[in-house]
Structure formats: C-alpha cells, structure tokens
C-alpha cells in the first residue's frame, strides 16, 4: 500500500514539475515554427518571400562611418625591418585567397614551396603588426617576400569556407625582402572544397 502511495505521489509530482509551456512567438519568427518531423534531413519550414515592414520600435541603423584609419603610404614605404628580428626565421610569401582564412605561405630558408605551410598570422599591435598594416590596403603587399620571426601557436585557426584547421604563426618581427619573382602556384589546404563555384547556389558559406 505504501509503495502504491509513493508511486502515485511521484506521478503527480512529475506532472506538476513539468515546466510551464513557453509562449509562442510572433509570426515569421523561427521560434514559432511547428515541431520538427522525424525526417533526418533538414525540413524547410518558412519561406521568406516578403520582408515585413519595420515595427515601430525596431531599430533601423544609419550608415556606419569607418573608424579604422590605415596608412596612406605606398607599398615601397613598408618598413624594411620591424619588431624583434633576432633568432630563427621563416621565409613568407604573402598570398591572397579570396574568402579563405590566412596570410600566405611560409617555408624554411633553402626549401621549395612544395614544402611550404599555409599560415594565418596572429599579432599583437604593440609587438609587431602584420606587414600589410603599414599599407593603404591589405592586398598591397601581394606576392611580397618577408623573413618572418616568431613561433607557431599551440592552437589553430578555423577556416570556415573549407571547414579545415589552419596553423597560426605568432609574429614578433619581420624583414621585408621585396616582391617575389613569382606567385606560389599552390592552393591552400582543401581550398578546392571552398572555391566559389562549388557552393554557388547558396553563396559563400559565412556571414
């Protein structure tokens, strides 16, 4: 009998303890969608044919004024040497790949680019900025060579277009070697899976 009373109490308690149902959200909000189906594939739910008019209290922003100022010097005025340039170094060639995380290729002195490593650079502005920080635009030192001083970080960077991990170089100094004779004719890791035409129908896989 005691056992039955206990079970009954637990059942009642479980019923009462169930959290209050959440209120439904306004129409068009993803929170108001119906319960998911058991189909393992993604089920498209709400088409967004028309953009609703802004509500009365909704913020509509004014155009943003850029606050970050860059240098106005031409590429030739990049400092020849900056930061701590003592100790071992890597040869780095600035390489630009649209919509792909990273700074470019590095290799050891005397090695070929076939043994090069694709890196992202992390910097402390008070130690040493990336070389292109001295230029009007980041692409102004495309295919320039540098001696890069620093170390590889113990963590990696996530490259969102190709879903791969990229090595990070913590820069503490650089020496400019001027323009390279040729571009590095090699794609960064898994770049093929991130090329624009691969996912053209849905656009770049990021915002």
């Amino acid at each position, binding site marked *: 009998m005691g056992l039955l009373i206990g079970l009954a109490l637990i059942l009642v308690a479980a019923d009462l303890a169930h959290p209050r149902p*959440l209120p439904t959200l306004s129409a068009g909000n993803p929170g108001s*969608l119906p319960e998911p189906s058991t189909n393992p594939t993604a089920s498209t*739910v709400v088409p967004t044919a028309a953009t609703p008019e802004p509500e009365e209290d909704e913020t509509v922003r004014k155009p943003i004024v850029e606050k970050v100022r860059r240098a106005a010097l031409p590429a030739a005025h990049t400092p020849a040497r900056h930061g701590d340039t003592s100790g071992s170094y890597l040869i780095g060639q600035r390489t630009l790949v649209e919509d792909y995380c990273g700074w470019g290729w590095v290799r050891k002195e005397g090695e070929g680019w076939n043994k090069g490593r694709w890196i*992202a650079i992390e910097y402390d502005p008070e130690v040493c900025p990336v070389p292109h920080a001295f230029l009007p635009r*980041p692409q102004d030192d495309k295919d320039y060579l540098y001696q890069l001083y620093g170390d590889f970080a113990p963590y990696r960077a996530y490259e969102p277009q190709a879903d791969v*991990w990229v090595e990070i170089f913590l820069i503490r100094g650089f020496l400019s070697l001027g323009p390279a004779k040729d571009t590095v004719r090699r794609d960064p890791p898994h770049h093929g899976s991130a090329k624009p035409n691969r996912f053209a129908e*849905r*656009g770049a*896989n*990021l915002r």
Partner: protein
Amino acid sequence: MNRRLALALLIVLCPELSWAYDIVLISGGPALRSHERFKVNTHDRYWGNFVDSTLARVKELRKEFGPDDKITWLVFRPGYIRRGLEEKQDYLKILEERGHLHGLTPIYFDDKDQLFTLLQRNGSPEKPLIARLEYYGHSNKKCWMFDYSNRVDGGAIETQVVHVDDLENISGSSFTPDAKCVSYGCHSGEEFSQRWRMIVGRPMVGAVGKTDYSAGGLPKLSEGKGGSWAY
C-alpha cells in the same frame, strides 16, 4: 522507500524548485574592421550587431514572459575588447549600459570551455534548466564562431568556436524536455541544427542561407538567396 516518499513530497510541496527555468541568449563577438574593411563580402561594419539584436529579442521576450522570468545573457568578451581597442571605445561598458536598460547584466565568457560550463544545468535554483536558447553571432553550417576575423583574418581561433564535433560537451539534461533552441547565425540550418538535435537531443531552428543583422532589430534572412528557416 522513506527517502523516495520524502523526495516526492518535497517536489509536490515545493513545485517552484523544479519549475525554475532559464532563457539563455548568447552574443558572439564582432570582427575587426582592419581585417574586413577591404573585402568584397565585408562583415561587421557596426560593432554591436549581435548585442543590439539580442537586446531587441529581450524586449520581445519581456512582452511575452512574466517580469520574474529569468533571462541569462552570455557575451563573448574578447571580441568586444579587441574591437574596442581598434576603435578606441570601451564597448564592454557600452553594452553593459544597454543591457542595464533591459534589466540585464551580461555574463562574459572567453572561450568555448567557459560557455560549456555556463550551459551545465541541473535544475536547481542556482542552475535552472534551460527552456530556451538562442545564438546571435557568426557561424557557418558546422560551427558557431565567436571571434570570426578578430584574432586572425578570415578565421576563428580553435578555442573560441563551437564546432559540431564539440556538441558532445553540451548535455541534453541541461534543457527542459520541451526546450526550444534557435541559431540566428548564417547557415546553421544546413547542418548544425541537425547535429544539435541528434547530439543534444533538442530541436534547433537555424537558417538555410545567410542572416542579415544590418538593419538592426532581429536578424532577417538575407534577400535574394531563397533562404529559409529549418530544423
């Protein structure tokens, strides 16, 4: 037997103990303009995209929920510090002031491990179960990226992303049985939502296509790509 009976009586007599629940809103950090300014697909012209949208949502939630309902606002701190250094602004102070206007104090996290800890719940008054979770920030179909294009150009630091492979660190027992989750990042509905449902065990609504924060208020699906919301 006596212990079980006592527990059942406790739950019956003090139902508020197990009724406590939490609404968790997560704001990721902005990119640096020095990385993004000259890109074709530029991001985060405005530093507070993910702050304003979260607070706009709070305003909406306040209308629907009672004044005593608890909302927890988790903010990725390093992103706002670095963006503030770049633009010579104290964005943490500004976002705290904005949160105060909505009766919210941000709880900061610096990496994914801290976020996982903050999401560990047991239903006690100190750690109420999560009834609703929403994410505002950068993402792709496999990953929430709190510091996208901030410490490194065009990418995110390993310790500051939640990849689908990390989802095992989030326990379904931290959520109420009918918890609702929404990711307002881009492309989450293409894979992240499904993996969340499989691993965490709660449905998550995510975008197929991009989301757009540029107009303020809640993010909208970008126009022209045929985007939609999906589980």
